[in-house]
């Protein structure tokens, strides 16, 4: 694969994905908005991270940053390393060399994410040819194998089908096949099942989970569904107004949330642990990113808010083995040795 020829050295000890202090700012003549703010995390080989948060909290932008897939108005600061490769420093040609091969993405809307005037087979084979440089026939054979891998019935016939000829579920399976076509080590899935019918959602999720385990890919998942998060992820990160407000192992975060926003999110969504409980939406509405409060972004909606919350943005502080939360309540940040979030330590 082409990315193996990338000039940057590959340190095997380094985590597969390492994001340090990533911020993304959209600049236009009339306004400048920072939509992802100081996000740091790492991901090891085979690990699955789930991003949770209300819409507009910056999940999609965070994901797309990993492949620099944002419009030219986006400005990145911080550092993104995928298998040791400094993504933000890559030239256009090198970048397209890792897109689709080292890291690939499954989009939310299978209806619009596939080119309507090319067949499924053509779209997959094109990717295979781009990265593996094989013949047309070999690429087509690989496309067929991939359709079978994602369990599309009568795969041979579907190879020559256009996206509009497939149902939503099959289309998303085709999208998954496309994403897997060059054996990526990192898979990004942005709400991969949100656009599908409920019954189809489960099938596609189960497929994704088994593929992720079978192929040993590191995965970052965006979802609204806490149940999905529990099923698929090893770790979760809760985003609010462009920041990670809580981050840790799934079991820790979902059973004893340390941040009031996480708590609110747990109460406002249906999921296995709390079935039968009352749903309580979080009061207030998501903040305007262009006019954030001076302190904690969640403070205006927080039931525990006090004066100290308005003093400044609380740092991510440790709450237990690898669990971090950005809240002064119950944190040890007032004590002498305030643990500051460290990307390596969170592992």
């Amino acid at each position, binding site marked *: 694969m082409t990315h193996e020829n990338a000039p940057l050295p590959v340190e095997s000890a380094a985590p597969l994905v390492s994001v340090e202090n990533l911020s993304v700012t959209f600049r236009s003549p009339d306004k400048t908005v920072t939509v992802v703010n100081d996000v740091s995390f790492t991901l090891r080989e085979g690990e699955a991270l789930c991003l949770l948060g209300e819409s507009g909290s910056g999940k999609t932008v965070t994901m797309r940053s990993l492949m620099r897939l944002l419009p030219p108005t986006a400005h990145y600061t911080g550092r993104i390393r995928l298998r040791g490769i400094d993504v933000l420093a890559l030239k*256009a040609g090198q970048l397209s060399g890792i897109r*689709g091969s080292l890291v*690939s993405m499954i*989009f939310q809307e299978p209806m619009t*994410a596939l080119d309507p*005037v090319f067949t499924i087979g053509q779209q997959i084979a094109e990717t295979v040819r781009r990265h593996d440089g094989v013949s047309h026939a070999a690429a087509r054979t690989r496309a067929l194998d991939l359709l079978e891998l994602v369990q599309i019935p009568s795969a041979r016939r579907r190879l020559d089908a256009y996206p509009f000829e497939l149902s939503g579920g099959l289309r998303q399976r085709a999208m998954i096949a496309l994403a897997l076509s060059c054996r990526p080590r990192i898979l990004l899935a942005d709400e991969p099942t949100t656009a599908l019918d409920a019954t189809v959602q489960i099938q596609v999720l189960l497929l994704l989970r088994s593929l992720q385990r079978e192929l040993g890919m590191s995965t970052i998942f965006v979802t609204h569904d806490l149940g999905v998060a529990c099923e698929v992820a090893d770790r979760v990160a809760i985003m609010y107004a462009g920041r990670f407000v809580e981050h840790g192992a799934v079991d820790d975060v979902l059973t004893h949330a340390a941040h009031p926003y996480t708590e609110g999110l747990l109460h406002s969504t249906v999921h296995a642990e709390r079935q039968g409980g009352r749903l309580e939406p979080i009061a207030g509405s998501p903040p305007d990113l262009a006019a954030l409060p001076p302190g904690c972004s969640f403070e205006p909606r927080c039931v525990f808010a006090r004066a100290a919350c308005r003093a400044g943005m609380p740092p991510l502080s440790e709450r237990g083995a690898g669990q971090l939360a950005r809240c002064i309540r119950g944190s040890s940040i007032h004590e002498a040795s305030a643990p500051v979030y460290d990307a390596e330590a969170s592992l």
Partner: protein
Amino acid sequence: MIFYVIRRILYVIPIAIGVTIVCFMLIHLAPGDPPDAVLPDNAPPEMVEEVRAAYGFDKPLPVQYAYWLSRVVTGDFGRSIMTQRSVASEVFPAVLNSLTIAAAAIVLALFVGVLFGALSGYRSGTLTDRAITFVATTGISVPHYWLAMVLIIVFAVNMRILPATGMGPGGSSGFAFNLENLRYMVLPAIALAVGPAAIIARSVRGTVSEIRKQDFIQTLYAKGLGPTRVFLHVAKNAAPTLLAIIGLQTAHLLGGSILVETVFSWPGAGFLLHSAIFSRDLPILQGAVLVLAMFFVATNLVVDVLQTFFDPRLRRG
């Protein structure tokens, strides 16, 4: 696909019949009794009757239509009132001449329009885009006969580098593929191409920038394709729209270039129509309109079929 093509061809039959009916009725809708055109004002009634019978005007309309149609399908469109030559021998060479200049104009318009339209669509919002949009908007608004006269004044009268009128040296009225004849095509082709080029540029710009905003473009970049390969996808998605515009513009050029052909004395269908209208030569008018209308129908058919070649979704309809 093949079924779609067959079905689409079958659709043409009723349209073609409709066209023939309209063309047939043309003579009867025109003011005055048809024979008036050929008769002196003070013709005796016997002579009027004689002419009516000779042209078949004394029979009921459906009979006249059936009779007319049976001749038309064998290529017999009657005789010109002015020249007494067969309508076919007047109309076909003229339509061919129009096709020649229209083809040259369309190729030119396509080249310029697609190039600048795509550039503008890729650079949408920039200075380049705005400059192209400004020029294109001007191009659409400029009357082509005025442009034709300006071109003649500048390049033929003042600079004397290109011939002003006609189709070839010595008033030749048929096309020959040589440098000397090509020189006669330059000015009329440019005059005819400006409008379509501007329209093509505008719609290619719109289509391209619209397609580039679609989600699947992200997917293409996400799978590691470079800009050239992505352009291929943009182009295939834009092709049906472009084809529709080419079809419309070709049809428009064939019939709508009366003024430009007159200015350049280009012996085409427009030129022929122009003189037929002024001399009330109804058989010529009828024949020319019928042939041109059939060209429109055929162009539409070709465009529709080609469109489905690029966009499979259109095959369903």
